[in-house]
């Protein structure tokens, strides 16, 4: 066998390895119900949940509770299946949070509360090339 063949085989193996590890390390988008099920089955992986903030009839965000020291807060989020859930975040409220049109929380259930490690926001009509990032977990 020629050397170049060996190298090509190694490269192909590495590529397959990369795809496999990506699939293995990838998180998933789930609903709160599934996330709860996962947590109660002892699966402590962090997952993504997509949803919206709870709003009242006039469109104001409700259910935000700030910690006394303003360094943590919790909020009510409704996932794509309409399930409402208290989400706790141990960081100050990210900028533009209440204006967001869609929220993605990354984290897991601890008891009955969803503990977010990271929050991603999607804000309406404001493209910011590299704006408004949220501090990573």
């Amino acid at each position, binding site marked *: 066998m*020629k*050397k*170049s063949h060996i*190298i090509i085989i190694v*490269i192909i193996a*590495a*590529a397959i390895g*990369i*795809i496999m590890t*990506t*699939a293995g*390390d*990838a*998180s*998933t*988008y*789930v609903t709160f119900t599934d996330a709860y099920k996962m947590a109660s089955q002892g699966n402590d*992986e*962090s*997952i*993504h949940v*997509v949803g919206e903030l709870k709003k009242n009839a006039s469109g104001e965000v409700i259910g935000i509770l700030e*910690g*006394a*020291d*303003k*360094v*943590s807060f919790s909020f009510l989020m409704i996932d794509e299946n309409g399930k409402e859930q208290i989400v706790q975040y*141990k960081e*100050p*409220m*990210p*900028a*533009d*949070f*209440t*204006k967001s049109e*869609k929220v*993605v929380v*990354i984290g897991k259930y601890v008891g009955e509360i969803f503990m977010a*490690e*990271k929050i*991603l*926001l*999607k*804000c*309406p*009509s*404001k*493209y*910011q*090339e*590299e*704006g*408004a*990032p*949220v*501090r*990573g*977990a």
Partner: protein
Amino acid sequence: MHYWIGNVGHLCVLIAFVSSAVSFFSFFKASNALNPQAEGWRKNGIFSFYIHAIAVLGICITLFTILANHYFEYHYAYNHSDSKLPTHYLISTFWNGQEGSFLLWMFWQALLGIILIHTNKFWQAPVMTVFALVQAFLSSMILGVVLPVIELKIGSSPFILLREVMADAPIFKMQPEFVPKEGNGLNPLLQNYWMVIHPPTLFLGFATTLIPFAYCIAGLWQKKYREWVRPALPWALFSGAVLGLGILMGGYWAYETLNFGGYWNWDPVENAVYVPWLILVASIHTMITYKNSQTALKFSIILVISVFVLILYSTFLTRSGILGDASVHSFTDLGLSGQLLIYLLVFLLAGIILAAIRWKEIPSSEQEASVYSREFWIFLGVATLCMMGFQVLVPTSIPVWNKIVDIFGGNSNLAPPANQVEFYSKYQIWFAIGVGLLSAVGQYFWWKKIDKKELKKELQTPFLLALLLFALIISIGSVTNPVYMLLVLAGVLALVGNAKILINLLKSNPNLSGGAVTHIGVGMMLIGILFSAGYSRVVSINNTGLLYSREAGEEFNRDNLLLFLNETRTMADYEVEYLGPRLELRENNGFIDKYGVMLTDDRDYVVLTRDQQIDALKLKKGDTVRVYGENTYYEIQLRKEGKTYTLFPRAQVNPDMGGILSSPDIHRTAIADFYTYTSSIMRPDQEKEWSKVQELRAKVNEDFFANDFVSTVTNIVRVNEVPGIPLQTEDVAVKATIQVKGANQDNIAEPIFLIRNKLVGRVSSEIPELGIEFTLMNIHPETNDFTLGYKTRQKDWVVIKVLEKPMINILWIGTLVVMLGFSIAIYRRYREFMLMKSKGQEV
């Protein structure tokens, strides 16, 4: 209303689109040398490309005029700027929106197109065909034309009016001519000098990747399979340098401005430019190999096409809204995803098909590369770079994969890894080790054909030196992680190995030293990245043993330092003290003490309540000054060995945004950066908790203690003016001046006692520095003294987090060295070209 200027803009966009299409067609015709009218078509192509370039310039000038004159009837100006922004930030609002950044990209490409027209006539027609086609696609992105009948919108125009965007807003229904007084403004995080220079650099990098691609396509098309590499190579080098610089500037901006504590976060947006850059660097290597030994031509073709396609793919990822659920950056889909996809697919397919048709004709060497040949080692390096890119590309593309599965009726709920930094770092470090080792060893093969014995001899000295340096670094840096050790070794080997080659080259032929210099820089960068990221540590450890907050969690309580005003704490080897809140002056450089000013209704204007001196600038009590009202800076002093350093981390409380935006300040030392930001601040809207009022009697010029502070009433006078209260003729107002000795300075409180219609009013006066408030309770003329009341509260505070980033300067110096290396290489290739030109080749 300034409609005409928008119409001029629209017209320019249309002209730009049509002229690029005409130019494409003309150059296409001219590319066929057998065409008897080729020369006429060529002139036509040049002419229309010039028209195109002028139109693009026209669009830029129009858009900038709208922004500079604050025509808020235009959506772009309203949405991205406001009238308070200084000129340099107005420039950055230009590319804040998607339309503007497309425009910036087009501008660079138009300029590069003109340079190419004039520098290389030999390749002009086919290369410009590709250029003009790309320009047509880009122009279509900002067309903003709705096709009749099928109601298809093409492009999003930067000249759209606000009322067209918000047609349903009640204000426009009642008042179609309504023009908002003020715009939305620019995100404060983007109000940074890096945002003025980073996007143009990055987009110049994007634009230059088109040049090697255009030469490659031209070469395949015109069957000049070998010749295209010569002109493509210097531009590929230029592109590699500029794109690399642009990416690093972005990282540096993130480091200086954002508070996630690093320069690289493995966000999809960052990955989307990182991957094409890696492949671009790989393609430079294969092209150089081809130039020297006629191998790797096919590989070069594949890589050069991939780079451009990856740039289009990255544009698609970041602008189509597909990353919406995957990135911390907010994106909005402008409805261009279809157009972007077509753009991507056209060039992807054109590249693949053209390469496939010509594949058999492309010359290739069947000779097997020996293990001791440079080709073999370069090939390994290139493969490593490609895999390095591939490893990032796959997870970044997860949202695309989900979409494709969706289209075929499936359901995929894969999400990117939850902890991106950890995920990517754990794999990328191995590729980085490979790159480091190969760039050390590969360079030896590069310069000499050597066999086993000679290699040993050549490598012996640098290897021993590297080992010595390696041992030194890991013991000083106490590196114990074996993987980190390997990376240090790889970095040191690359550095020392290439340094030896550089020394040899400087003696013989300094012109050829580009490669060695670049690889020295790479070695430094690897070491710098390892230490600054791998050994970044929190130094603001809570050493009081007290919990700040039960709710905030263990990490917050452990890793942050609560600083009360003027109370010294220790941190690492430093004494640290919070000196108070500051405001940044708009007209002059510098900060004024926020305690010494009175806020007004316009947050950008404050009135001084005492004299303040900022360097040479003297400000008097009562002066009104302009400040950046949205930002508060927290002056933190660090002291060590008799030296003091001052830091101004920034926090912005923005009730609209519902949060605090904090930006760090960095204390830089030779061996480490101390990266400092406010993790919690006192909120101005929060009620302060005061103690009960204590009363005492005092005489003028007699010391008394108010909450342990030595205080004296220095003066008591009748006044005719009370700030904020208009006095009537019968009113009597008396002001006491109380001097209170603080830690660093004397503070003044001036409570006022007011009698109106036999009723008493009291205006209290707070000394925020000390957290004490005085009230003039009563005056006793009979005993010639008065009653003072005072109450106290907790002193002002700020909570900071400080990260130490060791050896980060090695990273920055390394990047500069890499840029220097690129420049030397570009200069060398440019001289080659000029030499060819003077010989009459390729003119």
